[in-house]
């Protein structure tokens, strides 16, 4: 019988929702989640929570909405689960290091987008989500340069993108758009 070690995020969720007695104390959990690249975890959740609580549909960029019957391989782990059911995703990692690796994939970089965001309306379907209303980048250090903006515009084409800045629990959204004032008469 395989032993399942729940992912850290599940542990955190249990702490937040149920305060259950599990093998990692909350302190140890926070320490693990604050180390290195996973330190971005809190900001990502802040942004996710902020938009979700206003009714927006938020998905992680690059991750499909529906994974029914699919395997998602990530490093040494394989994930199996269904978005449609309410089951928590379970893993069969050999050790907790592979779980950390999962979080490393979620690091905030100014070059990879964090979320796909859809306006809140009932027309959204997981089976055919369509293009997001915009792609969201989380910025940490400094505002994006013109060169970065230009690269992103080429990358995303017709789909708008925004930058989100999180500081002191405040979440702010900015649009940087190349423009050209018309020649007037």
């Amino acid at each position: 019988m395989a032993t399942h070690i729940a992912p850290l995020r599940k542990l955190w969720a249990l702490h937040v929702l149920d305060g259950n007695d599990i093998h990692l104390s909350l302190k140890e959990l926070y320490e693990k989640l604050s180390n290195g690249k996973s330190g971005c975890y809190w900001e990502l959740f802040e942004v996710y929570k902020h938009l979700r609580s206003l009714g927006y549909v938020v998905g992680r960029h690059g991750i499909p909405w529906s994974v029914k019957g699919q395997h998602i391989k990530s490093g040494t782990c394989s994930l199996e689960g269904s978005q449609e059911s309410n089951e928590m995703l379970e893993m069969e990692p050999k050790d907790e290091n592979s779980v950390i690796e999962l979080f490393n994939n979620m690091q905030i970089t100014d070059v990879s987008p964090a979320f796909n965001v859809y306006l809140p309306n009932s027309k959204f379907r997981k089976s055919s989500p369509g293009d997001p209303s915009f792609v969201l980048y989380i910025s940490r250090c400094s505002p994006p340069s013109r060169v970065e903006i230009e690269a992103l515009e080429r990358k995303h084409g017709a789909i708008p993108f925004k930058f989100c800045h999180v500081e002191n629990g405040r979440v702010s959204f900015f649009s940087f758009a190349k423009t050209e004032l018309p020649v007037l008469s």
Partner: protein
Amino acid sequence: MKPRWKGKGSQAKANADPMSKIVSQLQSSLIQSETRGLLSSCSVLVEVDAELADLLNRSCFGRPRITAQEDKQWFQLDMEEAFYLCFSLKCLKVIGENGYIKSNEELWDYLKSKKPVFPVSYKVYSHLRHKNWVVRSGLQYGVDFVAYCHHPALVHSEYAVLVLSEGDNDLNGRLRVWSDVHCTVRLCGSVAKTLLTVIVNSNNQGANSPSCLEHYTVEEQTITRWNPERSREDQTGPKNGTKKIVKDWCNHI
């Protein structure tokens, strides 16, 4: 961005009186009258008759100075305005303290000595003026310029312009940190203007002479704040509670 015209008839008035034509008339009139400007610290002073005064006012160059003189008026031109008339429109000559006319190169050097960012600032000023936008100082809004699509008496300014530079002539320190972005965007919003950053790249041409300007490249960019509370299409979607949000987060993020 739609212009906000002041009162009825302003738009029609502006359409009937294109800015390009007014500026062109100013240019001819200055050339004909062989007007000379006097260099005074960071401004250029010009003495003009009623016709020129009217053209300067209508094209939004300079500010009139109050004097006791009745037949002539004095106008004070900013650095960018003066250099635009001299170098780009070639309709004004400026006299230095020694009483001799300054060449464009000499004027350029002088203005650079007073304002190190002048080359980049001028590039932005001339770039917008060349497209027939009215460009005025944006100092009271904490930015470099404000841009109008016609005379300020007829229309509100749409853009608060910030001059940024990249490349070797990187003297400008604005918007390097998020707090400055927050501050500037908030200020622009409170005066109903969109923040327009105009980024100048000198392409390693330096700034030794005004002829370097033609090799500078310019990119325009707007920075706006998005408010998720106000952007929802409708309010009919359910507001998600924390428990569901946390659960979804763990499930699919």
